[in-house]
């Protein structure tokens, strides 16, 4: 029965295999980081870092470097700037994030202008904006896996002080945790996560993968561990299903034009968020 949904060559195509593995890894990182993004109320910072990643990816294309390296370097600089611009109060943090967002958007426009006028970088603009999981260079995979492992390990090691400082910076400080250090560390973890998701579904749509599965899972789960596991399942499902839909879409019309992976992934994420909203409403209706 499965052949009704999977077009020929899907499982045997090595490009698809790489995309499925890389996509799953990126989805796990995005979901785990995304739960803390929602708990900390830093969705805006996550969105700003996607713009920062765009500037980095465009800059990397301009000099012929790997987009992932550009995403990462720009994210580290941008994330550090967001924290340095003001983390004591939420309003200061938002203003700092907005300033970094504006600067990143300006740089992105500048770099993409140069990239689009350069014949040696054909296709880079689409790659930066909408991802390139089917065309990702095999040489990028080891670095991606290493960044993913380091990001997850860091998040897991600091999970308790990070959670405490997210719930109440004042309580955390009284216990001996340094909330600003936690904030800086987390924004660097966030930058790494955004860089990875930008590689798969593009910088523009990586916020959806970061926040969507986490938001849906937080609505449904009763505890934080359950929410994290739920977000991982939802994120992996969205990416894998998105890759399948994108692959299949090649055969849907005589013109053989695929729907981009990023659009398919975001479509699945939106369905998940809508389903969680219905679930949440039904549960409230039953008074649970």
């Amino acid at each position: 029965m499965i052949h009704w949904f999977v077009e020929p060559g899907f499982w045997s195509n090595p490009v698809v295999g790489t995309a499925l593995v890389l996509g799953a890894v990126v989805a796990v990182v995005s979901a785990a980081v995304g739960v803390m993004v929602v708990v900390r109320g830093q969705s805006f910072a996550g969105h700003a870092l996607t713009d920062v990643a765009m500037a980095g990816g465009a800059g990397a294309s301009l000099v012929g470097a790997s987009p992932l390296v550009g995403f990462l370097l720009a994210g580290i600089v941008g994330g550090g700037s967001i924290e340095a611009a003001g983390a004591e109060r939420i309003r200061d943090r938002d203003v700092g994030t907005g300033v970094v967002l504006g600067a990143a958007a300006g740089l992105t426009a500048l770099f993409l202008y140069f990239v689009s006028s350069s014949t040696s970088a054909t296709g880079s603009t689409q790659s930066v904006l909408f991802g390139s999981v089917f065309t990702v260079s095999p040489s990028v995979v080891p670095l991606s896996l290493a960044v993913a492992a380091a990001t997850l390990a860091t998040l897991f090691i600091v999970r308790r002080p990070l959670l405490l400082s997210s719930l109440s910076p004042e309580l955390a400080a009284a216990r001996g945790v340094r909330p600003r250090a936690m904030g800086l560390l987390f924004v660097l973890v966030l930058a790494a996560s955004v860089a990875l998701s930008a590689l798969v579904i593009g910088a523009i749509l990586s916020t959806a993968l970061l926040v969507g599965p986490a938001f849906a899972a937080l609505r449904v789960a009763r505890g934080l561990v359950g929410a994290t596991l739920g977000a991982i399942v939802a994120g992996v499902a969205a990416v894998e299903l998105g890759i399948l839909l994108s692959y299949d879409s090649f055969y849907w019309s005589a013109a053989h034009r695929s729907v981009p992976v990023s659009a398919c992934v975001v479509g699945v994420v939106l369905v998940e968020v809508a389903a969680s909203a219905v679930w949440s409403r039904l549960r409230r209706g039953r008074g649970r």
Partner: protein
Amino acid sequence: MGCEPLAGGRRELVHVHEVEVSLGGRTVLRDVDFRIAEGEFVGLIGTNGSGKTTLLRVVLGLQATTAGEVLVAGREGRRGGPIGYVPQRVAFDHDVPVRVADFVALGVDGTRLGLARRDRGVHERVEEVLASLELGALAGRRLGALSGGEQQRVLMAHALVSRPRLLLLDEPLANLDLPRVHETIAVLDRICRAEGVAVVLSAHEISPLVPVMDRVVYIAHGRVACGTTDEVVRPEVLSALYGHHVDVLNVHGRVVVVEGEPGDPGTHPEVVVR
């Protein structure tokens, strides 16, 4: 104005000596000098903006001083000491699925880095504290789904779970109705007497605390007076503290502290003492 710890062999736990704090170029605490012994119940009394929260933050090591010395258990005031802290207000997001038991456990291991799972001893201690505060039934509930009074008790459990020697509470009675006020004070008194935890509770009204308080630290205009209620809530002591005349009146069995001369348009009742 300084004061000595209670007699009876109790050891000194907190030593605040000639502390001064400036915020934004303004001196908000000056010549603050008091001591707290182990197992004491102390009320930190003053009006809004008198410096109570700043003084608690000084003891916690969260607020730097411009002069003076703060020792807690013989060591300079620093973060993460043997202190449990209940801040004035923590707003928990309704949608954050952090369960009461997990939040309370962070009072034990919230500073811990590493890959290890939470050990069984922490779970047992959390259950013990929740039971002692009659919160056992809430252990699996989301923090954000609790009422304000329940959240405050959970914050107390979070503060007590690490077996602190000193418990600081910043305005825990604000926004509680009278039965809840008396209930909260009774719980704190039991903890103080049964477990030997020194309790410092800030409030702007002294009345409900009088039956349980060993001593009062009265703060006004950044200066403090310390002693028993009878020693401190007197016209000559409070007048010296405020820097102008203050009356202490007995009205229908309650004592009203009135700032300013009788008939002065600026006169207003400030603190009521039963």
